């Protein structure tokens, strides 16, 4: 027989414990499954190298090599948001965990935040390793104009990005097998639109502006401006404007996630979709 719960967690304490509880398997699970080191660091690094050599084959200026290394590292975050945030609730539904989340007294927003924080931590390690090795291999030189601005941009970019992931996770709550395909479809078009491997300034203004709805677009553009000597001349908007837009996106996506999650959860319960598994 299980021991009785002596000290019940409620309110903020429960919220925080849920975040820690959901982040835990993300961080620890990855340490137990060592194969990710090979598949999520070494293989993407080779992919980054391929784009570097394309630029060298067409005699591009050397700073583009740095753009590819930074962009390649940031793909890890997009992949994480796409597969481990957006489509995660669909996967939890398939494995039967979603109903357990709903039954438990834990807040779903805390579950999503836990997934986000756990995923972000593990992905940051991956991205840092890719940048370090990529920079050493291709002798990328950085000239950081402001570490404080760089940190601010990164934090805002991650907040907006994972907020977006949380919002789309609630939308995916209603989806079934198509969720997997939609996530799959959102890979390459976002690599293209967000300028992972080239400055988005090369797009028409309105195309770049539309692409800025994805937080990585402006986050990446601002980071490039802050770390490369020629970055500012290739930037889409000035860094302060991009920071302002990222703040707005963070607020919109986090609020949207909260509202949509409540709505979608209610809808999913009403329509009986929480335990559905359309194989």
């Amino acid at each position, binding site marked *: 027989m299980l021991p009785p719960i002596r000290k019940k967690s409620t309110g903020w304490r429960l919220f925080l414990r849920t975040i820690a509880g959901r982040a835990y*398997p*993300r961080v*620890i*699970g*990855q340490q137990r*499954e060592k*194969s*990710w080191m090979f*598949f*999520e660091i*070494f*293989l*993407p690094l*080779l*992919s980054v*190298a*391929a*784009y570097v*050599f*394309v*630029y*060298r*084959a*067409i*005699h*591009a200026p050397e700073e*583009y090599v740095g753009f590819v290394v930074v962009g390649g590292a940031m793909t890890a975050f997009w*992949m*994480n948001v*796409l*597969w*481990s945030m957006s489509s995660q609730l669909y*996967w*939890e539904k*398939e*494995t039967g*965990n979603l109903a357990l989340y709903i039954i438990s007294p834990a807040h779903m927003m805390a579950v999503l935040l836990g997934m986000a924080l756990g995923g972000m931590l593990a992905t940051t390690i991956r991205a840092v390793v890719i940048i370090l090795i990529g920079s050493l291999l291709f002798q990328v030189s950085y000239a950081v104009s402001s570490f404080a601005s760089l940190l601010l941009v990164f934090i805002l970019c991650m907040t907006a990005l994972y907020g977006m992931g949380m919002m789309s996770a609630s939308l995916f709550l209603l989806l079934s*097998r*198509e969720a*997997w*395909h939609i996530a*799959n*479809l959102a*890979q*390459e*078009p976002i*690599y*293209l639109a967000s300028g*992972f*491997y*080239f*400055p988005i300034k*090369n797009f028409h203004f309105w195309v770049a502006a539309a692409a800025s709805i994805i937080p990585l677009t402006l986050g990446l553009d601002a980071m490039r401006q802050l770390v490369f000597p020629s970055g500012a001349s290739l930037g889409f908007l000035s860094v302060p404007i991009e920071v302002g837009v990222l703040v707005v996106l963070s607020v919109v996506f986090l609020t949207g996630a909260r509202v949509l999650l409540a709505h979608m959860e209610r809808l999913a319960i009403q329509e009986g979709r929480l335990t559905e598994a359309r*194989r």
Partner: protein
Amino acid sequence: MSVIKSSLDNLFSSIGWRSFRMAAWLGWKIESNWTDPFLFAIYSIIKPLAASAILVVMYSVITNGDFSSPIFPYIYLGNAFYQYVGSVMTGVSWAVIDDREHYRTLKYIYIAPVHIPVYLLGRGVARFITGTFSVIITILFGVLFLKVPLDPLLINWPLFLVSLLVGVIMLALIGLVLAGVTLMTAQHTFMIGDAVAGSLFLFSGAIFPLEVLPAWLRPVGFAMPITYWLELLRRSLVGSVAEAFPTLARFTNLQLLAILVGLSLVFGVLSSVIFRWLDHIARERGMIDQTTNY
């Protein structure tokens, strides 16, 4: 005549053929029935075009849109056909995750009268078909809008078809190795076939001539059958453009085909041995019905 007929009857009633046929049919149903045909068509168009557009924009940014340079069709066609690498390898290897973790039927398939390696190869057929749509769409887009110099009357069709067939079989066999590896690993946030395809992009000369690589890395490219396969496809489609690049200029088409067939045979034997070995370990460790999710 009756000998041929009885041989064919034996073949079509064999466990291997039935495993392949049913797996191909099952794979197609899974790949195509998740949505209506309209959305499926859009999905099939956007994904490959976006992937190619990344390279087109990169090239265009640096060269100010000089699409008449010979390096452009080299990059574009190499990238277009490289989509088969990801599709076929993922099709074969992802079936393990699909059946083990999503449908949770892998253990039932293992205990049924099914030849597992052939079943996995059959599951790759659907991805080959969707991959073919992607390749055709990408090439059509290149010809119509980006001046890729492709003339149907000048294409060496026999060389193209033979190279394509040998290459796809070779890719499926590499996919089998990845399927074996997948039996031993957890589900990750990506598909192993696509991840490996992305990494082999570097060595295969798909999007840049191997001369661009550091000299110590080039032997990896020369040891890979994909390098020769892509060269043969390019030569069959745009012969003069492809032959202008020095990487494999010293080889005739026939020599390249012989190398491709030879390397494919080597990879075929290796993949069979490696898959059996990994499959044995997975059974021994009870990994056939594991589910992983964090």
